């Protein structure tokens, strides 16, 4: 037993010794924490709850058999990496961490009864609930984006078969083709992600199909992250191959014609469209009253990530309404999962809360086959504003794209996957 485990046991032993009365007989039964969604947020929260509070019983509800990392999935498009490199089975994760895994989807959260109903009809009760369902796509905001159009214009914004489909179609195109991308209005998951994708499609075209072109239509007024660094790469590496157009909000999608009309006027036909749709909190959060900020994102208390809508329900990851400047990233979801796990542990054990949580983010983007850039920030809880605030003077960008940062980017992936979901591969 190390000192940490000793202190944790001691804390409970001393509580027992002082209490000794009947409520404690109930307290002795293991608290039952349920985590919905085993992505970057949920998997980390489940794992760290077991670390911080080994006596807690932790159940993970996740329908997919595999965790698939979105980070670095853009590298699949030019063939540097395969889907298997990004995948980890939930079965191995659950057994290695003493978790119960229910392979199912949650349909309803009854916060008053503290009970969930799953797609199979099964009911699951909880003492504490952590919800990390990621994002959902708001197709209603894209007129004409019906099922047929969606199948033709893959988003590949949830890594998996769609990423493979986008790669295969890109690779099947003849040289001289026009490829087009649409970037939705912020907030969406991974602010630099679409610009990384544009760079790597640019890389693929330069090396394989130099007579082709990528048109990037951004609904935002400018590049939202690492702007100068991306601009510099496109100018020096992909001049004539990647063209960027801001303020391009979609008016109408015509799937049959592979054509999109923009609000600023003009229709664009392409041989391949990659449409990243506008985003909001995961459907589960929307349908169960957790998305109480503009009906799109979930309000939380940044000390514990407890929902501002329901008691004993915590929301982490992409679904939350973050403080200004907080990105929706896997790194942040991982950090938020740890803060939530610590807050739940301290409260259940009646130990003092952490009053000034500090979390950090590093987002790497590849801009060529081997070269990457980063943006980093450190966020600290402000008791005054009750928000997470980026520490002034900390954080920042790369000076320039480099192969050294490319090496660090892949080391980041290895280590954050180990930390989130473990290193057991399929």
């Amino acid at each position, binding site marked *: 037993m190390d000192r940490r485990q000793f202190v944790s046991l*001691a804390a409970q032993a001393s509580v027992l010794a002082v209490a000794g009365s009947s409520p404690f007989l109930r*307290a002795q039964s293991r608290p039952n924490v349920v985590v919905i969604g085993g992505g970057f947020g949920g998997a980390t929260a489940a794992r760290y709850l077991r670390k911080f509070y080994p006596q807690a019983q932790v159940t993970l509800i996740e329908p997919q058999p595999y965790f698939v990392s979105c980070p670095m999935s853009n590298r699949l498009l030019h063939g540097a990496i395969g889907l298997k490199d990004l995948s980890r089975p939930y079965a191995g994760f659950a057994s290695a961490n003493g978790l119960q895994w229910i392979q199912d989807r949650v349909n309803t959260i009854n916060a008053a009864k503290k009970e969930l109903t799953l797609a199979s009809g099964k009911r699951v009760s909880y003492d504490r609930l952590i919800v990390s369902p990621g994002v959902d796509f708001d197709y209603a905001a894209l007129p004409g984006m019906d099922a047929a159009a969606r199948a033709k214009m893959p988003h590949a914004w949830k890594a998996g078969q769609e990423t493979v489909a986008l790669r295969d179609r890109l690779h099947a195109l003849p040289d001289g083709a026009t490829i087009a991308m649409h970037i939705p209005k912020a907030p969406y998951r991974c602010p630099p992600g679409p610009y990384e994708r544009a760079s790597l499609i640019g890389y693929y075209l330069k090396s394989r199909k130099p007579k082709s072109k990528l048109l990037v239509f951004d609904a935002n007024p400018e590049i939202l992250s690492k702007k100068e660094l991306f601009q510099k790469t496109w100018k020096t590496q992909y001049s004539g191959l990647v063209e960027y157009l801001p303020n391009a909000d979609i008016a109408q999608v015509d799937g049959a014609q592979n054509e999109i009309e923009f609000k600023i006027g003009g229709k664009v036909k392409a041989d391949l469209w990659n449409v990243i749709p506008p985003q909001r909190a995961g459907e589960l959060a929307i349908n169960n009253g957790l998305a109480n900020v503009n009906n799109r994102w979930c309000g939380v208390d940044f000390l514990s990530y407890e929902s501002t809508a329901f008691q004993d329900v915590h929301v982490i990851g992409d679904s939350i309404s973050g403080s200004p400047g907080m990105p929706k990233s896997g790194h942040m979801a991982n950090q938020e999962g740890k803060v939530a796990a610590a807050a739940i542990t301290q409260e259940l054990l009646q130990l003092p809360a952490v009053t000034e949580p500090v979390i950090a983010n590093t987002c790497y983007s590849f801009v060529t086959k081997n070269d990457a850039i980063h943006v*980093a*920030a450190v966020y600290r809880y402000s008791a005054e504003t009750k928000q997470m605030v980026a520490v002034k003077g*900390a954080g920042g960008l790369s000076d320039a794209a480099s192969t050294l940062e490319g090496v660090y980017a892949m080391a980041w992936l290895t280590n954050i996957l180990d*930390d989130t979901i473990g290193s057991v591969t399929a």
Partner: protein
Amino acid sequence: MVNVFKITFSNLRIAAALSIFCAGIALPSYAQTDMNVRLMAATCQSCHGKEGRAQGVGLRLSGQSEEELERKLLGYRSGQIKGTVMHQHAKGYTEAELKALARHFAQFK
């Protein structure tokens, strides 16, 4: 669930009970310090691995002395040591926090 655990004494008394229980190893506020440091260290592990045992050149924190880790962290914070990204992170923490992290990760050989 909270109600089950809403016992009649305050956190302070738990801390007191703890310090008696753990006499010799714990300061009176140990319980709180412990989770503060454990959580902060946990946030480092996203890049630096469990117990600081990261894979990749220059990322490992384990196997270093407290003095060595403290020298590096404070060096990044002051700008004396420049990395690709670590000097940007270190500036987000106080000197006291970095010293506590150095002490924490020095446990892991």
